[in-house]
């Protein structure tokens, strides 16, 4: 009896992990579909809202900004409120501009940035399922898929427990990224007003 109860409890816990989602039945189908959409996605323009939740402190830091992606390997993330912060990824080059300084990083010489760079690009390009740095599980809900990434490398493992990517079923694009930190905090980035394949100038991704 005890064993049955325990098994039931574990099952409930495993399922309660993502309310409204069940493990995906046909992974291959999802992979093909996801990759096909990614293949067709040349640009993404979107607004974003970021929520950093510090449960222990009953505190939440909300910031907003704009996001751009252009094939291949170009991302611009610009925070506009309540602080200004800019990150541009262009291939191996990263430009970071805070309110005081500009920092140029070549990810070839910075392993952590290289991995973060890869996560960012993998997420928006749909290649995340093939990233060997993570163990992936996919769940399906009514209107979205969830890709759960569990870090396998020491460096990322020391920072994140899991990273969860929400894919909107409507257009198969990323609508949210949730980073669960080892510290217990989480940071949720929610993408809204997504525009796919509109013309975006290369100049936006200049890291010079």
């Amino acid at each position, binding site marked *: 009896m005890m064993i049955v109860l325990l098994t039931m409890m574990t099952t409930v816990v495993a399922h309660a992990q993502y309310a409204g989602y069940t493990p995906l039945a046909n992974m291959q189908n999802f992979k093909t579909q996801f990759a096909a959409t990614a293949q067709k996605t040349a640009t993404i323009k979107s607004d974003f809202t*970021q929520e*950093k939740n*510090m449960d*222990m*402190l009953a*505190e939440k*830091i*909300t*910031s907003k900004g704009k996001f751009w992606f252009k094939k291949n390997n170009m991302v611009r*993330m610009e*925070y506009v409120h*309540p*602080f200004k*912060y800019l*990150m541009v990824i262009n291939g191996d080059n990263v430009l970071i501009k*805070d*309110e*005081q*300084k500009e*920092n140029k990083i070549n990810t070839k010489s910075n392993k952590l940035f290289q991995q973060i760079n890869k996560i960012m690009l993998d997420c928006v390009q749909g290649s995340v399922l093939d990233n060997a740095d993570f163990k992936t599980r996919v769940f399906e809900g009514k209107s979205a898929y969830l890709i759960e990434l569990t870090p396998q490398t020491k460096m990322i493992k*020391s*920072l994140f427990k899991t990273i969860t990517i929400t894919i909107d079923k409507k257009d198969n694009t990323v609508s949210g990224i949730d*980073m669960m*930190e080892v*510290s*217990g*905090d989480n*940071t949720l980035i929610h993408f809204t007003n997504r525009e796919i394949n509109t013309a975006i100038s290369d100049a936006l991704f200049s890291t010079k």
Partner: protein
Amino acid sequence: MRFLVLSSLLILLLVGCTPVYKNLHAATGDIHHIDQFKPAYSVALYNTAVNVTTHHLSGLLLVKTMPDSSVRTVFSSEMGLKFFDFEFGHDGSFKVNYIIKQMNKKPVIKTLRKDFDLMLMRRRNFSTAYLRKDGELVYYVFPQKKGSFCYITNAVGDSLQRMEIASRKKPIVVATMQHYNNGIPDTIGITHKNFKFTIELKKIER
């Protein structure tokens, strides 16, 4: 002659050992007057720039007073990653709730703890504190195990000019807190004198 050399040496030694603020003029007044500049944090978020030697790090510093009166200082990157979470207990205690591996070094924690202690106006024992002055300024000196914490106001006492952590001989940290609004300073600057390390905080209106 030998006596003269000896006494000069002794004088030199004594002068050399005189704590930095002791050389100022004695002053009388209410030492608690300095309390008006103690930041009254409920919660505040600061845009933060840290420069250590040639490295530059920016992020957000959250300062929050918890229901148990402890004060938490939490530093994270703009993109959300937490660097550290320090807890300053009402009873003077200190606890590291979290720190990333890259920063988890005793001297780093000790230095940051002292800087926050100065900023939050902790470690003040009023029974050993004393006042000093020079022409323009009043010094509120709080002796520590080693050296002292010192808060310096203008002569009238309505403006906090700077704060210092001093060794016996010289200030090793100089900090400022400016533009108070509802008891919370808008701009904070901390500069270390013995190595290239600065922290600049600018309050974010959320």
